[in-house]
């Protein structure tokens, strides 16, 4: 009887596998056609040629016919005699680094307070307020600062009222400080949510043990809390750095000038001119390759924490 049961079950399991596979099939097909194939198209455009007549890019899907025209054009702009991208790369890294550091410096204390010290009722209120920007459109949040930073806006009135400035500052055209603060303002809610989730998971008993065993406040923080929050800090920073490196809109709204351009602005501009679309494809592959490492790190790290949580 047992044997017959086994014999019956085997084909049924095969049937179940087919059932699950059929369920996953539409999603798999969709991701193949509209996620995997598109990246091959970018590659094909990057390695393709230009239609001389219309000045539009032609995709070349056969790897045997790939050309390096766009690649060398990109290289000319990076390292050739008329290269203009060097400062843009440096600026991209600099702005992203400063803005992310600001996010962390502001976000960590706030997340730490809400996770560890806020009483139950206040915690819910503060969480709602921390989450609120997550539900407010990014454009609305940028627009808010565009309003405040106008020449006759409230920021300038306040500065003049406090005698910190004699005449209104033109914040919205080519001020690096505005762009960096805009980036920090834009992405900090994501960092705070990740930090909060991580810090909330730290067992308070560990911190109390540190204090009970004679460590001072600062040393408990350095020896216990900070090492335990390394993982959330890393994933939180990634969640701000990845989109900042591909950001062009914050920069456009906060400055719009070429002296604050970042790599995202270059790609965005090249995309809007058919003649340069091939080069834009090269740069977006370039950016993808650089970001592949942190992206995979992020996937592995979050997978590990979610498995530990279960």
């Amino acid at each position, binding site marked *: 009887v047992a044997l017959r049961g086994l014999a019956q079950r085997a084909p049924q399991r095969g049937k179940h596998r087919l059932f699950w596979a059929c369920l*996953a099939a539409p999603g798999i097909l969709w991701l193949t056609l509209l*996620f995997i194939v598109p990246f091959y198209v970018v590659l094909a455009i990057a390695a393709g040629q230009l239609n001389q007549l219309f000045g539009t890019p032609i995709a070349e899907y056969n790897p045997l016919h790939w050309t390096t025209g766009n690649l060398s054009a990109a290289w000319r702009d990076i390292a050739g005699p008329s290269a203009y991208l060097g400062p843009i790369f440096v600026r991209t890294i600099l702005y992203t680094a400063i803005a992310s550091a600001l996010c962390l410096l502001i976000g960590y204390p706030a997340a730490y307070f809400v996770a560890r010290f806020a009483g139950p009722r206040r915690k819910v209120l503060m969480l709602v307020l921390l989450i609120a920007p997550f539900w407010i459109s990014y454009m609305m949040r940028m627009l*808010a600062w565009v*309003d405040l930073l106008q020449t*006759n806006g409230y920021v300038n009135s306040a500065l003049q009222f406090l005698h910190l400035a004699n005449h209104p500052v033109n914040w919205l055209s080519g001020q690096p400080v505005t762009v960096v603060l805009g980036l920090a303002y834009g992405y900090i809610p994501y960092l705070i949510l990740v930090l909060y989730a991580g810090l909330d998971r730290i067992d308070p008993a560990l911190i109390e043990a540190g204090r009970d065993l004679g460590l001072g406040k600062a040393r408990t923080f350095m020896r216990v809390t900070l090492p335990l929050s390394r993982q959330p800090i890393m994933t939180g920073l990634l969640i701000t750095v990845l989109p900042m490196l591909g950001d062009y809109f914050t920069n456009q709204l906060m400055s719009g000038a070429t002296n604050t351009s970042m790599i*995202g602005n270059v790609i965005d501009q090249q995309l809007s001119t058919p003649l340069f679309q091939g080069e834009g494809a090269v740069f977006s592959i370039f950016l993808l390759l650089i970001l592949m490492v942190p*992206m995979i790190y992020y996937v592995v790290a979050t997978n590990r924490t979610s498995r530990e949580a279960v």
Partner: protein
Amino acid sequence: VNASTATAAPSSQADRTVRRASGFRRRNPWRHPWFLEGFTWLYLIWSLVPIGLAVLFSFNNGKSQAVWQGFSWRWYFSDPVNSVLHDPVLHESVVQTLRLSVYTTVIAVPLGVAFALGINRWRGVTASSFNFVMILSFVIPELIFGVAMFFTFTALFSFVHLGTLAETLGLVTWNVSWPAIIVQARLVTLGRQYEEAAADLGATGWQTMRRVMLPLLAPAIFASAVLVFSSVIDDFVLVDLLNSNAANTPMSVLIYSTQRGGNGGPALNALGTIMLAMSFVVALVGYLGYRWMTRGERMDNRQALAAITGADS
């Protein structure tokens, strides 16, 4: 959760003993961190007050986005030409945002739920590699994905012209990971015992799915629908790259391109306020709906908040 209240009583007593024994005043090591609290409130003010002011300026009785000139509804409906209600471009952008949100949610949620169920139970290399692809689509910077979509719809699938269809296809791909990830997380917590019980009682795969799994997964599916809907309302990069004319430009792109073109005005603040109101309605419906659907489960406010923010998966 209650670390501060739980430790308050014994520690103050210990503190008193220490003070008496050592003979000098010591600061209570567990006292409330007022400085940190003040800092947190300052952060919240910095984060939210500008938005409040932007909402206020949408009611400005003047053309300025920076100087208050009195209250009016003119940018919403009173002005016969330039209000959101009467200007066809502004009006159409509201409709387009809603249209894209509905289309994307209706396609992405069933697709993602089926994908999650299939991938989670059908073990093998194909399943795990496509799961990896799905997670990659969750973390990839939107600009890089947007460029790929742009070239796909202009070079390979050029029969899909830039416009509503291209925007919807792009947004579905970009958002399908919400239901896929959330439902998988729920499947892991549920375990397999319900399915196995159903199978032992003679249910077929399809019956198990419909009668057992879907009801159990309903809160997760609902939460992911809320997240997809609201993230389409707020989406910018993809629709910025995939729109073709005023008829298929949603609110976020219109705000950006108009403000950047130097034609900003309180009407844009009105659009932003409408977006904000839409998101908050969705969030509220999501929160209440989620609480209602999980009313039998032990859960506090924070868990429900986390669920509809996507923070618990």
